[in-house]
């Protein structure tokens, strides 16, 4: 009797523990998403989260090509009209079925002047969302605007008026339509998602995904080694180095569309002289930076990174992108600085890779007599000098570039753009960038952007060094892991974890 009771209890306990054993993926990330409101994303990490919670009409596949997400298909009717058809039976986490009305609402909310939408620029040209029926609608723009589909894939998250009404503030809560629903977001600490049981795609094997925000590289790497995280993201090659030799850990890296930009303030002497800028570009050994600072995980790049495929011209086509000290000295002498000059470079103090890179650049500049002093600044102070005051000589920062090359150029180099922090002003470039936006023909666009790359590389208002890698390090127990080139979380719906 006793034995039977014991056996029954054991069975119950076993069953119960089996039933309650949750498959949780613990993902360590270095940066807090700040804001999950699909209309207020202001940086790459926020985009990843929003795309995970609020899928858009389109998304990027692993080759950065656009594919349908909520949209089953789309047609380009003419240069200013796009027709989309939604997938059938997709529901929000609160149960409502997604219709054309929701798309209209999401776009209009993003463009609403009362909602601060830092990334709305790629969707701004939309003048009307015309609803044909529940699942079909058309987007109209006044002028042809080529980057629009990228704007949709990157800058749009489909949400409903009901969600906005219910929560009021979508920064930390909300109801989207991805494979996981948002359970909790504690700023600077953790973002928790749980499986959405009525997801219309394949059922995700994971019950729960926890994103732990751990800003310190060493803390994140220790937590991963100790097994308290299943996967972790890193931006610094130095942080990843010791993890490579840990048994059971896998290191994935991808050349994300992100570039180290060396800004030269063209409003100031001596950087107002194009020859000085070219001399600096000629003095750099980009391959050495990639090999040493990035332990070979980075690639030299021009204004468009190699990860953007056909858009990118090879680096050796650009003037001064292969090291030439002779030419550098000549240019300096022509500009009236035969003995070089002294100036300062600003770098982000908490980014050890940037500081390493600056040190190496300083040594390379010194070979032609340019004496650059490195100033390490705290991020808030750096943003203040760089973005708000535009008060700097030179500055190094890694920034994600475009999906469409328009984003690489227009906001950074157009004479009227607020984000043209280097003060570059070239009417020919302005004209080319405007043509690039409004030309729909792909071949013609390739030519326009090739020309732009040549001009920008040659005139060097910014000197581009390398395409910056993004690392995902994960344990063997994590199955089907994929590292998306933009670090997106699209694949989490398929990831499984061995108990």
């Amino acid at each position, binding site marked *: 009797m006793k034995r039977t009771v014991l056996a029954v209890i054991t069975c119950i306990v076993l069953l119960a523990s089996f039933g309650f054993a949750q498959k949780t993926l613990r993902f*360590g990330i270095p940066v807090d998403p*700040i*804001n999950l409101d699909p209309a207020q994303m*202001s*940086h*790459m990490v926020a985009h990843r989260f929003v795309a995970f919670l609020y899928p858009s009409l389109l998304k990027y596949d692993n080759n950065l090509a656009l594919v349908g997400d909520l949209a089953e298909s789309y047609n380009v009717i003419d240069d200013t009209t796009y027709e989309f058809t939604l997938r059938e039976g997709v529901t929000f986490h609160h149960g409502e079925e997604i219709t054309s009305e929701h798309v209209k609402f999401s776009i209009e909310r993003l463009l609403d002047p009362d909602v*601060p939408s*830092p*990334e709305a*620029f790629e969707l701004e040209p939309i003048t009307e969302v015309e609803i044909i029926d529940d699942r079909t609608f058309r987007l109209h723009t006044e002028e042809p605007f080529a980057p629009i589909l990228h704007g949709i894939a990157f800058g749009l998250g489909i949400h409903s008026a009901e969600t906005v009404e219910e929560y009021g*503030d979508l*920064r*930390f809560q909300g109801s989207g339509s991805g494979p996981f629903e948002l359970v909790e977001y*504690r*700023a*600077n*600490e*953790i973002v928790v998602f749980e499986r959405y049981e009525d997801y219309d795609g394949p059922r995700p094997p994971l019950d729960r995904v926890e994103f*732990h925000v*751990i*800003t*310190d590289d*060493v*803390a*994140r790497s*220790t*937590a991963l*080694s*100790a*097994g*308290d*995280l299943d996967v972790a993201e890193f931006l610094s090659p130095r942080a990843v180095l010791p993890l490579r030799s840990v048994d059971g850990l896998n290191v994935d890296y991808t050349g994300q569309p992100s570039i180290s930009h060396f800004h030269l303030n063209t409003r100031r002497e001596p950087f107002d002289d194009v020859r000085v800028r070219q001399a600096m570009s000629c003095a750099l050994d980009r391959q050495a930076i990639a090999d040493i600072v990035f332990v070979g995980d980075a690639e030299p790049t021009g204004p468009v990174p190699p990860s953007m495929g056909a858009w990118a011209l090879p680096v050796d086509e650009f003037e001064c992108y292969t090291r030439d000290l002779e030419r550098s000295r000549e240019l300096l002498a022509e500009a009236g600085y035969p003995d070089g000059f002294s100036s300062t470079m600003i770098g982000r103090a908490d980014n050890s890779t940037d500081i390493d890179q600056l040190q190496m650049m300083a040594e390379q500049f010194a070979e032609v007599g340019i004496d650059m002093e490195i100033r390490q600044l*705290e*991020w*808030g*102070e*750096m*943003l*203040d*000098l*760089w*973005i*708000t005051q535009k008060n700097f000589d030179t500055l190094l*920062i890694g*920034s*994600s570039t475009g999906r469409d090359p328009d984003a690489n150029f227009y*906001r950074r180099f157009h004479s009227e*753009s*607020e*984000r043209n922090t280097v003060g570059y002003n070239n009417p020919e470039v302005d004209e080319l960038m405007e043509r690039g936006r409004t030309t729909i023909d792909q071949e013609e666009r390739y030519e326009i952007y090739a020309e732009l790359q040549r001009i920008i590389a040659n005139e060097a208002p910014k000197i581009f060094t390398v395409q910056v890698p993004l690392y995902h390090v994960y344990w063997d127990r994590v199955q089907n892991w994929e590292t998306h080139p933009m670090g997106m979380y699209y694949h989490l719906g398929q990831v499984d974890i061995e108990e």
Partner: protein
Amino acid sequence: MLIYTLRRFLQLTPMLLGVILVVMLLPRLVPGDVVTIMLGSESVISPDRAAEMRSLLGLDRTIPEQYWDYLNALAQGDLGNSLRTGRSLGPLIADRFILTANVALLALMMAIIVGIPLGVIGARYRRSRWSILLQTFSLVGLSLPTFWTGTILLLVVTFYLEGVFPTIGSAAAGAPWYEHLRYAFLPALTLAVPVTAVLARITQSAMIEVLAQDYITVARAKGVGERVVIFKHALRNSLIPVVTELGLQAGLILGGVVTIELVFSYPGVGLLVLTAINQRDYPILQSVLLIVSLLFFIINYLVDLSYGFLNPRITYT
């Protein structure tokens, strides 16, 4: 005693007003603000729109106006809202403080339990091998920076004690007490090392002084047992400098949690302050610093009161 307490608390008011002024001013002197940082480097937003966001957060008001608003809100028991998240600070800070209190109290307990007996042993067996060992320990313990000890402890746990102590985060809100203890253990141990060293040193020197007093010789001459001499006659009388030091160390521990919580990603008040500095979230900084100074005041007040208990000849007027 009552008058003494009242007087101490009256002294508190001008001190707090001063603290509030300093914690309001200092962060605002650093360049960059919450809007600049929230928008980061990629956003394309007009300066007008950014100015509007600033004005929504009340950042366009003058500093005297902000000071007055803050005092008003405080008088009504309102700590304000985070600029970054818009959430009310009361519950957030309370949650974080509990986590930090776990670590700080645990660290103090470890330091007292280990440090004071070590000091006693060092004094009793002066000029022996024990004493040299103790001196070495306190020198090393004091010299090791906590961020280094913390990192080394983490490595040890990662490679040799896998799964015994968690390396990140804190226990969930409803978890049993031992879970909280498990999460707080490593950060507390890290913080306890230098405090233990200081306590051992101070106890040792105070004990040596007391043991040389005549009444100890008298007690021994009377045939009082060594244990009674040490613990009843000597230890209690050496505790005044120890308790004073303990009060100061409690303050240092509150400061030390900032780096330690970063090393262990332990979401206490230290990590909160650090992120608030990086993100220029002034209200969080103000409130936490205010509470910490208040705590520091209370601890030192309690230390003062304990003198009377330790040495009945001390009275309060």
